[in-house]
């Protein structure tokens, strides 16, 4: 794990694609409401495990930087990945919802799906074959 992490960093600094064994997915999370709390996120690699945190490939919690919070997932094998994250503004460790079940904190996914509720894994997934940076706009 440590080696692949180093390789990923080397790849970034060299400005080239990653190696086949250890890619880096960088997610720039924008449109947080504030710099309070943290951005909590996970990436998944299958429809069956999608949005079940115990099935996540990796998880991250990063203090919210407000306008743009950067999350870096490293050491990833080539393949399809989907990102799900939310801004845990009050730091209570969960995506708060109202009495109707609608989120009251901002959340976001890769891809453009999810017009009504979360997108499917396939709508959110991206094919990772090189080090990649994506933007996720919270909503």
């Amino acid at each position, binding site marked *: 794990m440590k080696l692949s992490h180093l390789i990923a960093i080397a790849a970034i600094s060299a400005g080239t694609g990653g190696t086949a064994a250890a890619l880096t997915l960088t997610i720039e999370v924008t449109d947080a409401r504030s710099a309070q709390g943290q951005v909590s996120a996970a990436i998944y690699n299958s429809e069956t495990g999608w949005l079940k945190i115990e099935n996540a490939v990796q998880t991250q919690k990063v203090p919210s930087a407000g306008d743009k919070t950067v999350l870096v997932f490293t050491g990833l094998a080539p393949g399809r990945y989907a990102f799900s994250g939310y801004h845990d503004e009050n730091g209570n460790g969960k995506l708060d919802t*109202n*009495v*109707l*079940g609608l989120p*009251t904190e901002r959340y976001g996914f890769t891809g453009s799906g999810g*017009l*009504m509720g979360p997108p499917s894994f396939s709508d959110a997934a991206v094919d990772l074959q090189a080090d990649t940076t994506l933007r996720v706009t919270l909503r």
Partner: protein
Amino acid sequence: MQDFLSHDTTRRSALQRLLGAGALSLPALGLPLAARADAATAQAFEAQRAAHPWTQAFVGVQADVAPMAMTLHGKLPPALHGALLRNGPARHQLGGMRYHHWFDGDGLLQRYKLGPTGITHEGRFVRTEKYLADTAAGKPVISGFGTFLADGKPPTGPDSLNVANTSVVKHGGELMALWEGGSAYRLDEATLETRGVKTWSPDFAGVPFSAHPRIEPDGTMWNFGVSAMAGRLALYRVRPDGVLATATTLAVPDIAMVHDFAVTEKHLVFLLPPLVFDVARMKSKMSFLDAHVWKPQLGLRVLVLPKDALDKPQWFELPTGFVFHIGNAWEDPDGVIRLDCMRAADAWHATVGLKEVMRGHFGTEEFAHLTLVEIDLKARRARQQVLPQASEFPRIDPRRVGQRHQQLFAALRLSPGDRPGYDAVMRHDIGRGHTDHYRYGADVMVEEHLFVPRPGSTREGDGWLVGTALDLAKGRTLFSVFEAQRLADGPVVQAEMPRLMPFGLHAIHVAA
């Protein structure tokens, strides 16, 4: 007319007629399909403007409205000193893109400041999330109630579409702009600046809080909110000091579009027109409005909830119809609720007519008529009497909310000719069946007028009827004060200004 699809067909064929008449040249625009509809709406509207002066009321404004002193004829009663605040959809297009439905325009809070030296008018847009995002982009980027943008930002919930454009309330010392399907927006009363959404409790953050709260004489405010996606009706009771006392939700089968409700001494009363939300339509990328289906076979359902048992609904049924507004309701000792509302035969105005006006077209379908409803809680039946007055924007003496009332004030459609809206105001005596009215004239489009009680008096209807109207021929906005019991005498005070404001919705009077 039997279902929503036939309405839609009507609209499409109207568009085809326009295209056939050469009013539009879509291919020349070179716009992607989704965008083309909005530019086409703008072009259709422009093509109609010269021939139809009424379209001035739907042009809209693009920026906050600077203060202007009105020319006052007469002397304002000191009891009216303070302000009349009116909300309404006002930014109907942006970046050449025009909304498809009147209700999509951003809310403009207009203030008529009433003082000893006269009346000053100004207006400020509510800075909703949608207003700010659209403004930053220079075009609509978030879908509206009746306009779906295929390339728009995905909604996060009801407040994504919230334009805070329907009414205004002052309660517990707080001024709020209201919309039917989302949160209230808090405003600074001194500057009209937007402070942000109102959160009644963490559990009810972002839950709809309708534009028609009912404030009882003791200051208790009741309200509701329809969550179409969740199929639930939210219910709120707010103490006179503005603190939430009760909030709950109730599952409602075939949840309908509900704009208004009524309170009585013991009950809340909802009229559910059979304009029913269909989640599958929403998922297939229709506008929120177009995701509703007209199901006349459901009739017009009446939901009565005891105030002390909000989870114990009683259901009644009236003949199919559509209702935006209720005047008031009260119950007699025999357990009969008596309610008055403005009822139309179907939802044509909501689903088609208010789209047509955005394209400069006026349809002549049937208008809403004053209708008296009796709901007999013991005999478990409801019935209605439809009266001849074509009218809207019903208001009563606010001291009678939920209690027996005899007088109803409203905008009246007498004979404005081939244009939308109202040309008169009326007071209808419900007990005697007598109507007193004043007709402004065919060239004047009458906005909602409201009753302000005379201080020191307790007699129902003793006070003034106050409201605004758009003089289409002269391009002026009028502000009128009537002795409420003598409307036919005409305004006792009138002011005017040489600018025509967008036709607005609901208003309140705030004493100085």
